């Protein structure tokens, strides 16, 4: 038994690379090396948070209901623009208690005003070939 296995192995080796090749079926299941940096987070990973400060708790509930924090972090809006945006979102169902609306607008305007330069997009791995 052991001898015949050895003989077969020798025969395969002697036949050269053509015969020694893995059967086609096996080659199909081989995993191709990743053609992107595997250390990158996958698309859809949330890595950003609202900065600390008065009003963060309101923003965490009201905005994160439908948007990741990055949506707020990338804006550079005046207080007037933030007021318009918050009122639009409240009409659309954002959970902002009436007595917290001013606090939310002040928080967004203070952190994400026209000079806001804190936002960087998250570099992510491609998906969905």
């Amino acid at each position, binding site marked *: 038994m052991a001898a015949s296995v050895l003989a077969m192995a020798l025969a395969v080796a002697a036949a050269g690379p053509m015969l020694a090749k893995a059967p086609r079926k096996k080659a199909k299941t081989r995993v191709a090396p990743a053609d992107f940096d595997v250390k*990158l987070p996958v*698309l859809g990973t949330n890595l950003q948070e609202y900065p600390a400060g008065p009003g963060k708790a309101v923003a965490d509930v009201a905005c994160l209901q439908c948007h*990741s924090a*990055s949506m707020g972090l*990338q*804006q550079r809006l*005046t207080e007037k623009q933030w007021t318009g945006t918050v009122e639009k979102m409240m009409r*659309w169902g954002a959970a902002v208690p009436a007595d917290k609306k001013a606090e939310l607008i002040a928080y967004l305007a203070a952190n994400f005003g026209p000079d806001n330069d804190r936002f960087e997009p*998250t570099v992510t791995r491609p998906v969905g*070939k």
Partner: protein
Amino acid sequence: MARFALTRREFLAAAGGALLLPPAAFAAAAAESVPKDKRRMLQLNGYAIDAETPLDALTTYITPNELFFVRHHWNPMYPDLRRWTLAVDGEVSSPREFTLAELKKLPRAEVTCVLQCAGNGRGLFRPPIPGVQWRGGAVGNARWTGVRVKDVLERAGVKATARHLHTFGDDKPPEKVPPFHRSLEIEKVLADAIVAWEMNGQPLPAQHGTPVRLVVPGWAGDHWMKWLVRLSPQPEPQTGFYMDTAYRYPKTPGEPGAAVAPEDTKPLTELFVKSSITEAPPAAKVGTAVTIRGFALSGAPDIAKVELSDDGGESWRDADLDPRHDPYAWRLWSFRWQPKAAGRATLLARATDSRGSVQPKEAAWNPSGYLHNAWPAAQIEVAS
């Protein structure tokens, strides 16, 4: 669902096409890919996912599916394809539903064209505008395969009273957010719109609207309804937030930051002529030529020329246009530049389309930040 295997006819066509190509051209086409270190996406929102392609990855005629920008209004849908249908109703004599298999039995249509988000470049406008702050990579060029909308509507007996095609996707907005319902003029639909189930030869990926989306060559992405489930030709345009308030453009753009009354706006449709720079060396030496590359696109079917200037737009020289082209696809271009003096040089690009529209120095500021198309600039440090 998956149609990975080529039919015998497709295989023979592909093989025949490959054999007809001269070896050098074939090698060039096969080698055209995005290098591993540039294969990444810039995520602007984690949910709903919004991500753009870094400009230095937009260097191939066909943008690979996995590097194609993603824009969602809300979370994506994963429809059950055993139950999925496309309904056709409205101004038709025989309202009906099509299964995917039924759609695939209709004459096959294929177009290669640009898809660009209406808001691409919003982040570059000053004063800033609320919304996703796209930098310039919410654009790509792909081969879309499906069926002409005209063929679908004709099989339902579309009537002459149909003037606008109302389109409905299956994605559901949260809370009291208005649904993303749209319509577009029937003339454009009948001319060249398709219902696509393949993107670059692959089944339409989930983030691009599986199983089918609308493809509207030359028009901004808001018309390209994803997760399409219903087409309804009607005498009047659709109403609602995404028709009456969003995706509108001033009839006459005014001062940056100025409000525009709704009656002074019109629907945003065709893309504006635009070039972007995708490759430029940060440094060069006097007397040694360097290459600058990019793409150019428009709502017109072709690009006539792309020019570059190294003197602030005083004088311009033609870039070389890549011969590959399809109606409403982008044109890749390249430009050999000879630095003549040491110091920091600024290279500007501008495109002219086949209708004679020229890319402007400044993009017209508009309240929603649509279709930014100012001349792009590359800074190059030239050493003596």
